[in-house]
């Protein structure tokens, strides 16, 4: 290349030109047509193959109707069904994460049978026939020997077609044991509160016209009732111009609810019911109580019963034992605040006091006191917020199961029932044999009350065959021998009875998607097991069951398929006037319209729970009793036993020295379905940036005293157990107390939820409220010390 001459340059140019043209034209002909490899994907039939289908959300037991967006057979998006009376188009965070749960990479792909004993976590995948055979053999033996009653099922979804099918199937083998564990409702407290309402019937909260919510420790905005429904009512209430909804949160820790409350009343943990009693006293003293309501209450003043014995009245008790001054000393809430709150509650148009579902449960009488406030403010003609909706007239699937033999009898003969796991724990503590030889568990949420080392978990270990229907590895599969994975709610035909909003509704849907994995709905599996064991449950396919149940709604000549709020209002007036005008002619058309619109609702106003016209727990002269009312009195309990009072911290165990424990439940992780949802695990507590594992909260002063800092690890120990969790230092915790998170159903396997081991429920294992049987850590003291870095 030393010296270029023009000739060299020309030669190069000519050669290139000739070569290029040859390359462009000739070569492909020589090599033969080479199809563009990337072009073999199927061309579509023009439309983007996108459709929408209705489904029922399986995130919790509320039963919101949802609209699924399906593109080319893939579930891609989820929205609330605008016609749903609960969410009206909105969804809570858990509902929005249902798509994530549906495609959970750790979802169980098919029936599993344990390989070896329960300690080793090894499973073999089997076909459905083998899985069913493994269970139906045992079931057949039980049925053969007339001991069909020794089969039980504990479900986590609300009452609905699946629960009815399982009930009907077990009834066919003679077992009454189908129990519902409802993560949303305080299972133990609810019946007790209903007792206060004077009627053993479901009761709910109609928050539409509420202008004041006084919450004594209830996580109102964190997964209480149906989060979508509560959020909607709260949002509407707060955006109203007149009678704007105010929220007063009485809690020792600044929870997300307290953060948004109009007022956050900082009280000593566990003393919330005392405030209710003091406020009741103020209401009565200052005459802020409706005269007719006061007249309808028996027991306010001292009175004589039919046998002539004189009983103490409630007012003297309130004036003497629960005056604002004594309560202020006990709770740490200034007297002026107690008086102001009482007057606020007394003068509000439509107030409601709420006390259930506190992790450190307020105890039976605390709930009695809370509902005493509601009873005192009930006014004639007002809709009131605590309501007792009628039963949902779905047709029962054949004969209802026998009642006797149910194990949820309470220790005291009252209408209240005891949580099923507490009752099972009772078998263990009394050394009796477990009542079941076969136990079906719907999923981890059905075991949300069970903690390792609890009497109930020990009993569970003794049950010979435990079958789990979970769709993902969780607490129930850890205890099970056979896993028959359930399909997602979007793959089933089902209906769910809604009792979250206090109104009467049923969400229903056809299968929106074909089963993604080799799974079947328990509503098919249990009847199939019963058939293979020799009995015939006379149940059709899922769709037939749903249509059969929905038929009852048509025959009850009430309610309508989901419709716009205008149509609901119009239909309500028609029904009030005694007319019923279904949009469809025949029952079949009615059922189709219910399935197409997402469900059925009876738009009529639910009857108020407390109202002078309808006294509760009527005595001889037709007057109601002060909550917790008559049933306790009927058993001749001592006066101060049935009057609302505060179970002082003294009588709940764990009075050792140390800091007061403030257990709280993480709202988004409560509910059913797969716990392995990264979006929710990251949303556990945005304000302290905690997630994916339980955490404790300490006040900066305590943290400095203990020499720990945010992000480090602390060990918290009580008599019942100890836990090592990561720490968050925040001003939102009362000095001298330690807040500890728990989300019982969240624990389990799965790549995202694997580090959510036990939280505060481990410390409270084995401590139950005397009457309600709910786990309570009220007034419990724990030792807290820094965990050296690098330790376990």
């Amino acid at each position, binding site marked *: 290349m030393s010296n270029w001459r023009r000739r060299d340059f020309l*030669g190069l140019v000519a050669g290139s030109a000739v070569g290029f043209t040859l390359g462009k034209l000739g070569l492909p002909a020589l090599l033969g*047509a080479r*199809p563009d490899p990337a072009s073999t994907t199927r061309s579509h*039939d023009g439309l983007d193959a996108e459709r929408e289908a209705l489904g029922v959300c399986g995130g919790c037991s509320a039963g919101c109707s949802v609209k699924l967006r399906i593109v080319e057979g893939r579930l891609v998006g989820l929205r609330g069904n605008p016609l749903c009376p609960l969410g009206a188009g909105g969804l809570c965070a858990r509902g929005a994460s249902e798509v994530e749960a549906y495609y959970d990479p750790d979802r169980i792909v098919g029936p599993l049978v344990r390989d070896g004993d329960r300690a080793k976590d090894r499973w073999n995948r089997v076909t459905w026939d083998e899985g069913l055979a493994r269970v139906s053999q045992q079931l057949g033996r039980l049925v053969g020997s007339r001991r069909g009653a020794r089969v039980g099922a504990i479900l986590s979804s609300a009452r609905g077609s699946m629960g009815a099918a399982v009930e009907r199937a077990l009834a066919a083998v003679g077992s009454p044991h189908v129990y519902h564990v409802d993560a949303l409702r305080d299972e133990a407290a609810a019946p007790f509160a209903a007792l206060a309402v004077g009627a053993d019937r479901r009761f709910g909260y109609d928050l539409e016209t509420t202008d004041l919510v006084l919450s004594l420790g209830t996580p109102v905005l964190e997964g209480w009732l149906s989060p979508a429904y509560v959020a909607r009512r709260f949002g509407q209430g707060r955006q109203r111009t007149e009678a704007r909804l105010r929220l007063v949160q009485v809690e020792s820790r600044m929870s997300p609810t307290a953060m948004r409350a109009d007022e956050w009343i900082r009280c000593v943990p566990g003393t919330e019911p005392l405030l209710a009693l003091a406020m009741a006293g103020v209401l009565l003293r200052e005459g802020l109580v409706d005269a007719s309501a006061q007249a309808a209450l028996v027991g306010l003043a001292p009175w004589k019963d039919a046998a002539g014995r004189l009983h103490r009245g409630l007012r003297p008790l309130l004036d003497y034992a629960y005056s604002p001054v004594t309560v202020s000393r006990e709770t740490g809430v200034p007297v002026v605040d107690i008086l102001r709150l009482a007057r606020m509650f007394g003068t509000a148009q439509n107030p409601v006091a709420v006390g259930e579902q506190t992790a450190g449960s307020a105890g039976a009488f605390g709930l009695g006191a809370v509902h005493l406030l509601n009873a005192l403010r009930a006014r004639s003609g007002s809709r009131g917020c605590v309501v007792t909706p009628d039963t949902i007239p779905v047709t029962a699937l054949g004969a209802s199961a026998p009642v006797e033999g149910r194990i949820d009898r309470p220790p005291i003969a009252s209408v209240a029932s005891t949580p099923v796991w507490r009752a099972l724990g009772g078998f263990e503590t009394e050394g009796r044999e477990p009542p079941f030889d076969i136990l079906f568990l719907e999923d981890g949420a059905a075991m949300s009350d069970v903690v390792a080392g609890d009497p109930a978990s020990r009993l569970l270990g003794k049950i010979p065959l435990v079958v789990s229907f979970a769709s993902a590895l969780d607490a129930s599969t850890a205890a099970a021998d056979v896993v028959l994975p359930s399909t997602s709610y979007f793959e089933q035909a089902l209906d769910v009875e809604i009792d979250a909003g206090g109104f009467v509704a049923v969400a229903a849907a056809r299968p929106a998607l074909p089963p993604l994995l080799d799974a079947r709905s328990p509503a098919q599996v249990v009847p199939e097991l019963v058939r293979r064991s020799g009995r015939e449950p006379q149940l059709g396919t899922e769709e037939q069951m749903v249509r059969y149940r929905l038929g009852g709604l048509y025959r009850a000549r009430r309610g309508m398929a989901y419709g716009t709020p205008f149509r609901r209002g119009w239909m309500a007036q028609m029904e009030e006037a005694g007319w019923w005008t279904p949009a469809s002619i025949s029952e079949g058309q009615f059922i189709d319209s219910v399935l197409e619109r997402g469900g059925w609702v009876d738009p009529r106003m639910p009857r108020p729970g407390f109202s002078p016209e309808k006294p509760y727990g009527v005595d001889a002269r037709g007057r109601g009793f002060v909550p917790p009312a008559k049933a306790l009195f009927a058993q001749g309990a001592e006066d101060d036993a049935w009057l609302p009072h505060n179970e002082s911290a003294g009588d709940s165990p764990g009075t050792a020295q140390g800091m007061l424990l403030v257990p709280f439940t993480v709202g988004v992780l409560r509910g059913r379905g797969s716990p392995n949802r990264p979006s929710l695990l990251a949303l556990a507590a945005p304000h302290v940036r905690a997630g994916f594992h339980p955490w404790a909260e300490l006040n900066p002063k305590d943290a400095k005293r203990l020499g720990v800092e945010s992000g480090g690890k602390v060990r918290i120990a009580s008599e019942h157990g100890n836990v090592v969790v990561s720490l968050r230092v925040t001003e939102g915790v009362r000095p001298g107390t330690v807040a500890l998170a728990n989300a019982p159903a969240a624990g389990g396997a799965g790549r995202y939820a694997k580090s959510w081991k036990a939280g505060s429920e481990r410390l409270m294992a084995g401590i139950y409220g005397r009457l309600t049987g709910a786990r309570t850590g009220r007034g419990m003291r724990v030792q807290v010390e820094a965990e050296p870095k690098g330790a376990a």
Partner: protein
Amino acid sequence: MIGRSAAWLTGIGFVFALGVGAYSSERYTDQPFPFSHAAHVRGASCALCHQGARTGPRAGILDLVACTGCHAVPPGNPSGEQRAAWQKAEAGVALPWNRLYRLPPHVYFSHRRHVVLAGLDCSSCHGDIAQRTTAPIRPRQIVKMRDCIVCHDHEKVTVDCTGCHR
């Protein structure tokens, strides 16, 4: 004598260009079943078969199944494989056509917007397909952003990035 080095240069130039030419010659794609637009179109609008163009982003192509509607026997002289495909089509099983135009995943392009709202004629982008007797073997051009921008500027339509990027 043009000298040793010049000869070398032409040779190298030739071989180099040969490779470039071969490599850059567009690949071409043939379809699993012959189709002649000329025989079918005769003035009918493209959207008759590519209905998607009127209703949504993708134009789409009718399946072989639709052909079995009119043709009793597979038209032309089908090879064995094509005959088998035809039997399946008669049984309703669709035969996937090969895609010519590749739309990158970050682009939102909707036929309806261009055909129905803008009233463009299909040939403005796809060229004169109506007269072809064989299926087109390659896209009229590999559509690049430049082509869209040129047309949008010309038609004074928005060239806002978020209009097409997603």
